[in-house]
């Protein structure tokens, strides 16, 4: 599936969840299911700045598609990471570098990604895009 198709799917999944706690419960559930990153990858170099919670990310290019692995020490942040990765993982770098993550706004999570939240998510999205651009450039 393409990035926008996945975004539409996530919007549909979240549509019935009207109350904030229903959304948070879903994020918590997704957060619990997100695979834990190996400790060896939780390095200073892979750490996104954020004084409230820590976020780590690594990436590699496989068959022309980018594979990201990310983690956080906070559960709800892990949930948000899980849906972000669902959108960007296994996508070609050209699609990632030019994507518009409109689904975050639609499902009401965009405020969590504002730089003022200092939870590492804003830097994470920036990293994902920069990373895709670098893979494009290397090619």
């Amino acid at each position, binding site marked *: 599936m393409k990035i926008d198709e996945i975004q539409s799917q996530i919007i549909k999944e979240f549509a019935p969840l009207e109350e904030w*706690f229903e959304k*948070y419960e879903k994020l918590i559930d997704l957060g619990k299911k997100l695979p834990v990153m190996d400790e060896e990858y939780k390095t200073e170099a892979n750490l996104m700045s954020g004084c409230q*919670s820590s976020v780590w990310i690594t990436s590699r290019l496989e068959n022309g598609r980018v594979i990201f692995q990310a983690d956080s020490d*906070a*559960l709800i*942040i892990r949930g948000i990471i899980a849906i972000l990765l669902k959108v960007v993982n296994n996508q070609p770098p050209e699609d990632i570098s030019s994507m518009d993550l409109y689904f975050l706004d639609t499902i009401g999570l965009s405020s969590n990604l504002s730089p003022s939240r*200092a939870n590492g998510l804003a830097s994470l999205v920036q990293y994902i895009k920069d990373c895709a651009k670098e893979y494009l450039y290397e090619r």
Partner: protein
Amino acid sequence: MFDINKIRSDFPIINEKVYGRPLIYLDNAATTQKPLVVLNKTTEFYKTINSNIHRGVHYLSEQASAAYENARKTVKDFINARSLTEVIFTRSTTESINLLADSFGNTYVREGDEIIITEMEHHSNIVPWQVLCERRGAHLKIIPFDDNGLLLIDKLHDLINIKTKLIAINHVSNALGVVNPVKDIIRMAHQHNIPVLIDGAQSIQHLPVDVQDLDCDFLAFSGHKMYAETGVGILYGKEKWLEAMPPYQTGGGMITSVSFDETKFAGLPQKFEAGTVNYVGAISLAAAIEYLRGIGMKNVFTHEKELLDYTVKQLNGMDDLTIYGNSPNRCGTISFNLNGIHPYDVGMILDKLGIAIRTGNHCTEPVMRHFGIKGTIRASFAVYNTRDEIDVLVDGIKKAREMLL
């Protein structure tokens, strides 16, 4: 009489709703809300007498200057300073400490000298001293605290020596709410003729602070944490020290004459107030002090102490919850964690319930390191908070745990 309903009606923001729920504001250690008398005072000032102070020949400037100097008198009386010359208006606690580190530091601290702080300081009472020490080749010495958040005062005996130039300690910890035995520390320091700076950023709004009774040499605090506007702070200093210290910043307002060959500096307190000061901030601080005096600092202390004790009792009744800094002597602030749960997750859920608390390291990384944690959930109180609000907080914490476990 202490009338909580009257007090709550003095603060318009307290009746705001967030996400459709009544706002429960428990982030007062970060900044307090402002009463109408403070807001009205500054609006009125701008409407009627705004003019740059100490500059003009005209009526408005006279009025504005008088209001500014009256504000200094209000602060002087509030902290019981001996004279007006001992009260310096600054931008904040941080600027007050930086002023001292720069001016006092450059005058008195030499290579090999030592400055003593505690393990419990806010970064703003660590970094200026650390930078000064690096600049002068001096050393920073640390008074540790135990797991209950009590300073190990006995260690101070070992730390003090002939090289000690200053002791800088917080009165109340912003991370733990622990009230430190500053009077004992000051007495001990003075036996060795060492001056003491008290960081009063978290005490001045909660309990009576009397600089003559404490006998501190310096006291720093901020206006915005005690119901005044942002951007105004105080550095109190004993006259003998301030007289001996050189200016921190230079420019207009702090001179008596300037030529290209020589500049003569003004006396205290103008010597330390370069440029156009935040005179409206100073006037708002005076209004906030008048407001606090109207309630009475003892009443403020009693009300907030009762709130804190109630909170401790409620939280102690919860399983899997750790309170940090179980000192019997606390005020204003309580820090805790739900075991195995990240504080930021709890904060996100409390936010949606309309409860404003703070999570994180509270600019006290060494305190977090002491307990081996990344951060805490911090609830901090003001004069307008109530038991009902604590009940909402406790229910919110229970809800967060239920969702996150």
